[in-house]
């Protein structure tokens, strides 16, 4: 089957997660190779500063998942009882 080359500019949110999802969709429909998807993700990560990468790591881990209010309560308890 003849192949047609199409270039699209996408306006994605700034997160690595959004880019990852967009690439997954393209992969799913066979519109991009695995190798190409990986190289795009690597290039985009390398372009970002270290704090943007740190923020993205925190976002992807998301360890506290809606429980930061409870954590603040624990910290408050520590502070109310803490004496030197």
């Amino acid at each position, binding site marked *: 089957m003849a192949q047609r080359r199409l270039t699209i500019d996408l306006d994605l949110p*700034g997160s690595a997660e959004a880019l990852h999802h967009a690439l997954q969709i393209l992969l799913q429909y066979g519109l991009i190779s695995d190798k190409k998807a990986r190289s795009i993700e690597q290039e985009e990560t390398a372009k970002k*500063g*270290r*704090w*943007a990468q*740190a*923020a*993205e*790591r*925190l*976002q992807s*881990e*998301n*360890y*506290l*998942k*809606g*429980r*930061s*209010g*409870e*954590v*603040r309560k*624990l*910290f408050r*308890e*520590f*502070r*109310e009882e*803490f*004496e*030197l």
Partner: protein
Amino acid sequence: MKRYILDANFLGTLEDSESPEYKEIFRKLSSLPDEDEVCVSIISIYEYYFGIFNAPDENLSQQLLKTKDTILELFTILPLTLESAELYGKIKTAYKKQTGATRAGMRRHNVDFILASTALEQQAVIVSKDNIFSKIQEFEQGLQVENWTV
């Protein structure tokens, strides 16, 4: 080059994308230039360990343990020093005189006084939304504070 000290409450929010303040904090952290340094006081690590052992369930304890490990990898941990001890004594006494706070009120702010003294010693900016730091600024003009939730 700027140096920041994140208050423990901000750290908690960074690992919880469902928090209403998350987006703004994420945006601020992402926009920092590479040469800036983001730090955490050792006292905040004490707070994390208290949370890990005192969490109401094992799940939260494990979540906090993982969060603490990430913090240790990403940020610089600042120790308590002799210089900051002197500043702590000075700030705490000035605050007591200025506000007439009760003993319980003073005790509640011990961690804040430690953070403020570390920030002054390191010439760092405290990232917090607690207004205790604005009160300290009234007599310690050198203290720099930013609230990344606005």
